């Protein structure tokens, strides 16, 4: 393991550990409003100050990290499984299936994502708890985010379909389902891993985009998206540099995710 990957691994683990220990590190909680001290600068009581309605920013970052880091990989897993099924199968079957799948994924990719997300979000029931809303948000992201990965996977699966070992296995009398699940899918593993790791930051950023529009995770639950919204209207960074912490954390974690990819996965 290269030193960069080791460092990335340490960073991701440290961030995960801190977010998991949020209850202990930030006992004030993410929702409590200290109304006598809105937009307060960092102090002994509030390490990173408070937000506009007096909530402890450090606590919100820790809890927001927990949510984004837990649910973005879950959404990535959903989208990668869908991509493997659609793209992998179409690539393996080839012919009309491949053409159909590509046409479908192209159509899906051409849809205006953001408007689609806004529409789907607006159709959801209103009276759901913040926790349910965050689960729904990431599930929607996972269900809508498979198309790009499916396109990559269909190309890789198509190459595998014409490879010598698949031809030989087919000649030996192996049937399609066994061929696909036992021989094709395992050989797509590097591509699947790469797509999985790449999807995580994409979903974090997507949720952040929705959050910036006010359509992400429901209040009072924090997420990186809602934390980044605080930067809206920030005219001078010099006045309140501590407000940049969520952005820095996002950059550090996303960079670490990229560094965690192996050479093989990067090539894939």
């Amino acid at each position: 393991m290269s030193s960069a990957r080791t460092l990335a691994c340490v960073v991701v683990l440290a961030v995960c550990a801190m977010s998991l220990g949020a209850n202990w590190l930030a006992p004030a909680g993410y929702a409590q409003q200290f109304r006598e001290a809105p937009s307060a600068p960092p102090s002994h009581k509030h390490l990173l100050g408070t937000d506009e309605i007096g909530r402890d920013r450090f606590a919100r970052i820790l809890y927001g990290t927990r949510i984004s880091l837990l649910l973005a990989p879950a959404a990535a897993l959903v989208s990668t499984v869908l991509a493997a099924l659609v793209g992998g199968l179409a690539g393996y079957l080839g012919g009309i299936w491949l053409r159909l799948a590509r046409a479908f994924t192209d159509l899906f990719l051409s849809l205006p994502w953001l408007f689609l997300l806004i529409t789907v979000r607006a159709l959801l029931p209103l009276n759901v708890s913040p926790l349910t809303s965050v689960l729904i948000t990431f599930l929607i992201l996972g269900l809508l985010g498979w198309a790009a990965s499916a396109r990559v996977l269909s190309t890789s699966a198509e190459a595998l379909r014409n490879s010598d070992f698949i031809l030989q296995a087919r000649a030996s009398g192996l049937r399609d389902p066994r061929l696909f699940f036992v021989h094709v899918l395992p050989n797509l593993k590097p591509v699947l891993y790469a797509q999985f790791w790449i999807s995580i930051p994409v979903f974090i950023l997507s949720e952040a985009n929705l959050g910036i529009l006010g359509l992400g995770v429901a209040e009072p639950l924090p997420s990186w998206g809602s934390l980044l919204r605080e930067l809206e209207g920030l005219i001078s960074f010099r006045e309140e540099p501590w407000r940049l912490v969520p952005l820095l954390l996002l950059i550090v974690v996303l960079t670490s995710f990229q560094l965690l990819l192996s050479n093989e996965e990067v090539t894939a």
Partner: protein
Amino acid sequence: MMGRRVFLRLLLSVAVVSLALASSSAFAQNGGELRFCLHSEPKTFDPVLVDDDASLSIRYLTGGVLVRSNRRTQELEPELAESWKVSNDGKQITFKLRHGITFSDGSPFSSEDVAFTMQRLMDPALHSSTGDAFRSGNGAVSSKIIAPDQVSITFPAPLAGLERLFDQVAIMSAHSPKKEAAVLGPFMVAEHKAGSSLLLRRNPNYWKKDSQGRRLPYLDSIRLDIQSNRDVEMLRFKRGELDLINVIDSDFFDRLAASSPGLAHDAGASLDSEFMWFNQGASAPIPEYKRAWFRSTNFRRAISQAINRDDLSRVVYNGHAQPGVGPVSPANKFWFNSKLKAEPYRPDAALQRLQADGFHLQNGSLFDKGGNAVEFSIVTNAGHKPRERTAVMIQQDLGKLGIKVNVVTLDFPSLIERISQKFNYEAAMLGFRNVDLDPNGQMNIWLSSAENHAWNPQQKSPETAWEAEIDRLMRAQASTTDPKKRKESFDRVQEIAAEQAPFIYLVNQNALSAVSSTVAGANPGILHPQTFWNAERLTLNPTTRASR
């Protein structure tokens, strides 16, 4: 002798210098280009069809009106009309027009233009929202040209506050081939780059002069950049690229006030209010037990008492807002019912009210008499930070009573669809941007049959006694021209609104604006257009004029 000569020379020098100063002072008042932003593309330049903020601003700057409501004093002042008279029955108004006025294209102004404008305004095919305010009853509105400088307009039924409505009526030319491009206001549209900017140039034929006989406006032009992003607008103002911001938020106001105190203006409580309401519609797709809560006066009053409005004003608006009292802001000097006070924060009293309705606390959660946990959602528009913060603070306030509130932010079209078409919501929070001082502007909210009777719209007959009483009072105030009787009726409407709390008024934001030090003569007020209501008298300093 010598001394006398020196004295004469001195006198001559003083005279020359005085003349030079006088001429430079006159020069200092003329010319230059004022710059500020519109937040969206104007939908129309036709003054009759104006329905959006951007078009409203253009109409204000380019349109000539018969009478104008002074944005500072709230008094009505003569403009194109020298005088006017409303008949005793309140059905007719007669205007005496000024002489020698021409439109920007040189065509003369006369009573024919007023009649033509009224005819267009009341044309049912045009669906003019400005014209809607004049629809007093069944029947046609007729205009009679008495003389080139005199015109009377007759309405089928009495219209209360009739003369004030003409503040919004920009007179169009009956004969000019340029139609809406021929204007009587201080500026005229010279250039329009769709989606980018508008250039208004001085109307060379504008009729008004200042006290020293100089023709107004002082400015050569106004450039209006179309910029929807408020943050970009504020950055450009800080960089000196813009001269005015009509409405700024409290965060930016405080930052600007800290760095450049002279540029930030707080004109006090505005007419705008923030409020929430519960869905009481009989056909709304919500559970019956929740409809019963929302229809209970005790429940609504308890929610109102459990909201800490002082905290909302202080935290969300940084102190630049006043706790909301009712449908009329205290800034509306004549119509506000001064007996009313904002609902004080009293969570104990709120709990008592709820207990009177059979609600009870159990393990920190509130339940109704049927055993249903009290939980509801508040919808508001996504991206409106003060409203989102307000909702979260209400969530915490009501949480102290054991009520669970889910805050849902939706994009604006989805929100409007839910609250005005599908009625699929429980509680909603929005703001009311009031541009009309007269209560007639609120008829479409308070009448139980109205579409905008938000909590239970389009009722065939009033479903509650208090709504029937409001209907009666609103119609009574609209059908008399006696200001005292009208005030009495509308005061009572405000009292019923406070007793029944169909709308829970939260705050009246202050009118916050920014005016660059390059601009002289600005006197920001609370009424639209806050910073440029006296645009014809605004001037720029010589350095700015030279650079533009």
